[in-house]
């Protein structure tokens, strides 16, 4: 017992920079390079067990781990916010294992790991956006078999995908998918943008930043290189429409950012605030500056 605690006392220092060992990082980097070469193609990679559960961002964490260098400035968001529990937990993890600088400011970050949102502030060249992906396969709920969906991608057999959109319009008059709205990357592979609201889809198109997607449990990595054409699937006569709540943020007053609805009183009164906390802060500061002048 005593011997053991001496031998195997696990101090975080004994882990490699950013947790993963260099061999694993190399394997992931190879997958990332392949993914960047074939935009939107899902590259299988040998996902490792991470100290967080599958489904909680292990894919994104592995990609971040493989990309991080000591001079990086890291930002982690979940639901657009830096202070949601899972974002806090992941940020702490990299502070502990990689000792990198962290920020909440989108424009200051060199690497942003995200779950479910793309920041409102425009991304720049040299920035990396890492998405956490639960189900990388956009065809999964139309066809459960991996052997089948891989063939469908290989042959661009996307008829079924459009049948889903067709049915939406026939039934509701418009396309019913509100988040994880499928896109076509570089005119080739149909890609799952991860469960971001479709409001964020246009931000993926022609973005100067590198967009990397990691799905840990499903063992897939895919990527959208900078300035790549990303088109949300639609029909000529029913074009894609980004959508958000038609209100202003009750903190910063912004009307062009994605809003969260909050219930503010027991009788169910609603209010709307920016889901992107950094953007909201920035706008509030801008407003107060204007007022000062």
């Amino acid at each position, binding site marked *: 017992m005593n011997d053991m605690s001496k031998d195997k006392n696990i101090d975080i220092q004994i882990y490699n920079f950013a947790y993963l060992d260099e061999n694993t990082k190399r394997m992931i980097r190879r997958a990332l390079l392949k993914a960047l070469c074939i935009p939107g193609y899902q590259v299988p990679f040998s996902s490792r067990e991470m100290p967080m559960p599958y489904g909680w961002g292990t894919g994104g964490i592995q990609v971040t781990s493989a990309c991080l260098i000591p001079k990086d400035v890291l930002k982690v968001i979940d639901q657009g916010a830096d202070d949601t529990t899972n974002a806090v937990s992941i940020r702490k993890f990299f502070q502990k294992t990689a000792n990198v600088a962290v920020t909440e400011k989108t424009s200051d970050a060199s690497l942003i790991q995200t779950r479910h949102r793309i920041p409102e502030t425009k991304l720049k060249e040299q920035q990396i956006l890492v998405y956490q992906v639960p189900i990388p396969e956009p065809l999964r709920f139309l066809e459960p078999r991996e052997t089948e969906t891989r*063939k469908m991608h*290989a*042959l661009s*057999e*996307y*008829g*079924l995908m*459009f*049948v889903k959109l*067709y*049915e939406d*319009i*026939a*039934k509701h008059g418009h396309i019913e998918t509100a988040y994880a709205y499928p896109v076509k990357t570089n005119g080739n592979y149909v890609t799952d943008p991860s469960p971001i609201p479709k409001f964020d889809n246009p931000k993926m198109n022609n973005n100067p930043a590198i967009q990397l997607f990691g799905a840990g449990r499903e063992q897939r990595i895919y990527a959208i290189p900078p300035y790549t054409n990303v088109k949300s699937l*639609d*029909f*000529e*006569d*029913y074009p894609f429409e980004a959508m958000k709540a038609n209100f202003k943020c009750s903190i910063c007053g912004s009307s062009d950012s994605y809003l969260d609805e909050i219930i503010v009183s027991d009788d169910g009164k609603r209010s709307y605030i920016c889901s992107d906390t950094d953007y909201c802060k920035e706008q509030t500061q801008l407003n107060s500056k204007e007022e000062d002048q």
Partner: protein
Amino acid sequence: MMQDFLFKASNISKYYGQNVGCKNVSLDINSGEVLGIVGESGSGKSTLLNCIYGNLKVDEGDILLNDKSKTILNFTKIDEPKLRLIQRSDLAFVHQNPRDGLRMNISAGGNIGERLMAIGHRNYGEIREIASSWLEKVEIDVSRIDDKPSTFSGGMQQRLQIARNLVTKPRLIFMDEPTGGLDVSVQAKILDLLRNLVRELGIAAIIVTHDLAVVRLLADRIIVMQNGNVIEAGLCDQVLDDPQHKYSQLLVSSVLQV
């Protein structure tokens, strides 16, 4: 002459364990021609159809298609992606049970539209228009376009399956007992429809059936199968009016007695 055929299968054999599915079967078909494969159940005709369509792997033999660019493709040699591409563009398959050939939880319009969307149609209004016109062609009330096939009668389901298959104008259509599960009156209507569509569009067809009335109405040529072997082949009228093989004679006479 070699380039004239549309589709040719030679020396096809398929075994299930120690049992013979079909043995050493050859057939060929030209553009716009209708070939009937007849025989009682268990004679190997459905196995043969699934083999030559590429659904079942054959143990022996070659399956050749003369594709749109006049290249001869051998189904037993090409890889699966290529085969599926061919199945999607040049071929079609009508199942005996419409449930196997339709998406039951997708509307009639979506069922017809799928093949169109698969080959690149991206205008909702156009897809709907084409789907409507095909519903008319197969005599289904256009107001049913947003209803799911599960609310249709068996005959309607079968007509919908035919529309779904023909909408992209394939060059060869495979049919497995297309009127099998239907009432006699409904059968007649479907056969009539099939005959008109196949003629009108100039599509070649291979029809498997146990029903000689079906082949007499539709087929130009027939082959007769027993225990996995072809025992007689020829022009439809010739074989039905003057069968040479004992089994064919039995088959024809048993129908006449009814």
